[in-house]
């Protein structure tokens, strides 16, 4: 505080905080926790929403064919970085391609690598067929997908490797030739190579003592795009009619339905996060309101004094609101700062713990999220002190003089 006589509004509002350091510290801490939770939850919700959005917008396939029983494992690969590997007979590529209404059928071969040296998260290795692929290609910026061969790999955006650098899997070196754009999906923690390279990697894995159910020519899944103008349901029906509904060993996953169910699960989760955050906000508002209402009634005398030297009721209310605004302001700054300190360096780790590599909002988005939660948690103070502020202005100063029981 300046020692001179020209007091600022801040000085007057601040003097009360100084007088009650313990209480003020607790309230600031409360506001800090609030803004920490707001930022954290917002980042999480943002990542989830983005994931759901991308998934429905950009998963190019209409139908996915996987071994029956592995329908949910696809979710793990596409949405989270939960590597898995499963296999079907390669004949299925020809069989599916010949079905009426199928435009493209592109196979993939999965190798689950547990902990590769490059990466903090378990990496999924996906072998794909650059000639027929229509799923991965659109995510590789400028480079022509067909130019990928041999030990070339394309890495997801969450994998720490430079284009032009090398990565080692099962003691074999690979050349990073391209990097995917952020997909906001499990692809971000995936390494792509040709199907042949992936099969050889599976062989390396077995040679190193790993277990793999893959045969030399296995494939894991087939992504199908239906011909222009054909209904996905009809094509699925055609496939099932041709190869039998059960017992064929494969399962058909309709991408849109799958995406919808995932998206609705995610929006339920987001709703839950938002609801939880709103409840926390309201609770913080209540606690601050109670705290300020208590000090207001214990400070009747001080308010009476201020009235006696010319303070209007509005000014008193403004002082009380400024006091709580100061509390929530410092709390919001501290909480958001701590959230930044926690989230920024550890976001890859957090994402891996959550098994959601894509739940890493880009920095500019993070800045926006931090700003929004800063404002929201700052607002809690003035909002909470609305009623105490009115109390301060309304008090009948007569009782003030007697010590103020109101």
């Amino acid at each position, binding site marked *: 505080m300046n*020692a*001179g006589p020209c007091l600022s509004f801040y000085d007057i509002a601040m003097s009360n905080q100084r007088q009650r350091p313990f209480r003020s510290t607790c309230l600031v801490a409360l506001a800090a926790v609030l803004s920490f939770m707001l930022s954290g939850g917002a980042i999480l919700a943002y990542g989830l929403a983005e994931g759901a959005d991308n998934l429905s917008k950009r998963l190019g396939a209409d139908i996915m064919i996987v071994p029956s029983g592995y329908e949910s494992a696809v979710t793990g690969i596409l949405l989270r970085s939960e590597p898995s590997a499963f296999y079907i007979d390669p004949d299925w590529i020809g069989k599916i391609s010949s079905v009426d209404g199928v435009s493209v059928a592109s196979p993939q071969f999965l190798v689950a690598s547990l902990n590769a040296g490059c990466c903090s998260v378990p990496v999924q290795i996906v072998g794909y067929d650059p000639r027929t692929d229509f799923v991965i290609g659109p995510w590789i910026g400028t480079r022509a997908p067909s130019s990928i061969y041999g030990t070339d790999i394309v890495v997801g955006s969450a994998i720490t490797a430079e284009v032009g650098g090398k990565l080692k899997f099962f003691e074999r070196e690979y050349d990073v030739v391209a990097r995917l754009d952020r997909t906001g999906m499990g692809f971000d923690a995936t390494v792509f190579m040709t199907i042949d390279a992936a099969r050889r990697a599976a062989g390396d894995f077995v040679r190193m003592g790993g277990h793999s159910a893959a045969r030399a020519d296995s494939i894991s899944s087939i992504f199908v795009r239906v011909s222009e103008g054909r209904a996905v349901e009809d094509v699925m029906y055609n496939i099932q009619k041709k190869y039998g509904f059960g017992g064929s060993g494969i399962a058909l996953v309709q991408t849109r339905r799958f995406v919808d169910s995932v998206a609705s699960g995610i929006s339920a989760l987001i709703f839950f996060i938002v609801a939880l955050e709103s409840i926390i906000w309201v609770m913080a508002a209540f606690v601050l309101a109670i705290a300020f209402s208590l000090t207001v009634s214990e400070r009747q005398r001080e308010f009476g*004094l201020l*009235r*006696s030297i010319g303070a209007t009721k509005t000014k008193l209310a403004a002082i009380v609101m400024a006091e709580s605004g100061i509390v929530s302001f410092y709390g919001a700054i501290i909480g958001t700062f701590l959230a930044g300190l926690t989230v920024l360096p550890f976001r890859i780790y957090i994402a891996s713990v959550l098994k959601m590599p894509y739940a890493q909002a880009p920095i500019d988005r993070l800045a926006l999220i931090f700003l929004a939660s800063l404002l929201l948690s700052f607002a809690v103070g003035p909002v909470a002190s609305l009623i105490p502020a009115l109390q301060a202005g309304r008090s009948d100063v*007569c009782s003030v*003089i007697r010590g103020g029981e109101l």
Partner: protein
Amino acid sequence: MFEAIGLKKEYKRDGAPFLAVNDVSISIGKGEFICVTGRSGSGKSTLLNILAGMSPPTSGEIVFQGRKYSSLKDRELSAIRGAKIGYIMQGMCVFSNFTVLQNVSMPHFFNKFHSDAEGRARFLLDQLGIERLARQYPPSLSGGEIRRVAIARALFNSPDLLIADEPTSDLDDETTKEIMRVFESIVGQGTSVLMVTHDAGAASFGSRRYVMDSGVLASAEKNQARGKPPVPLI
């Protein structure tokens, strides 16, 4: 200059209404020194609060320099409190977490009448003999010094009426006399003073005296002309 007519203030005690101030009328002219005595609980502070415009009366009217309190908005009434009336409230009435200088210049925060707030505050502190305490905080001051701080603050905006509620309670006789001399010199400069006290020594001051009893204000016998004319101080 200042006229109160038929003031009543009703409070509830154990659910039953009673009049803490019962039909009080008083008029105060320029440069008058009025002294009100009365037992504790007789309604003196309640009356002063009403006169200072801090608390509205249940009924009755106050006219100050031609303006009716009842017709004024909070903002206007607050401006009167800030500018025309200096009110020294009963009991501890300084802000303990502000320095003496800040306490005295606090009215400046609400009404900017002086371009040089610090100069004005230092002038008043000097007049009251506590300039050297300017940067101290009230908890380190004596009771008499705290009262002077409160008086200096009440005088900050050169009020026309100074209202003081037991300004000398818990002060020793010597300090009481000093404070009374300050009041007399204020009166000598044309400021009206309305003081409540139950200090017999202080009660002998004042050009007009009243006694308050159970909310009723009655005139005490007329004061004899005082020997010494007041010495101008401020």
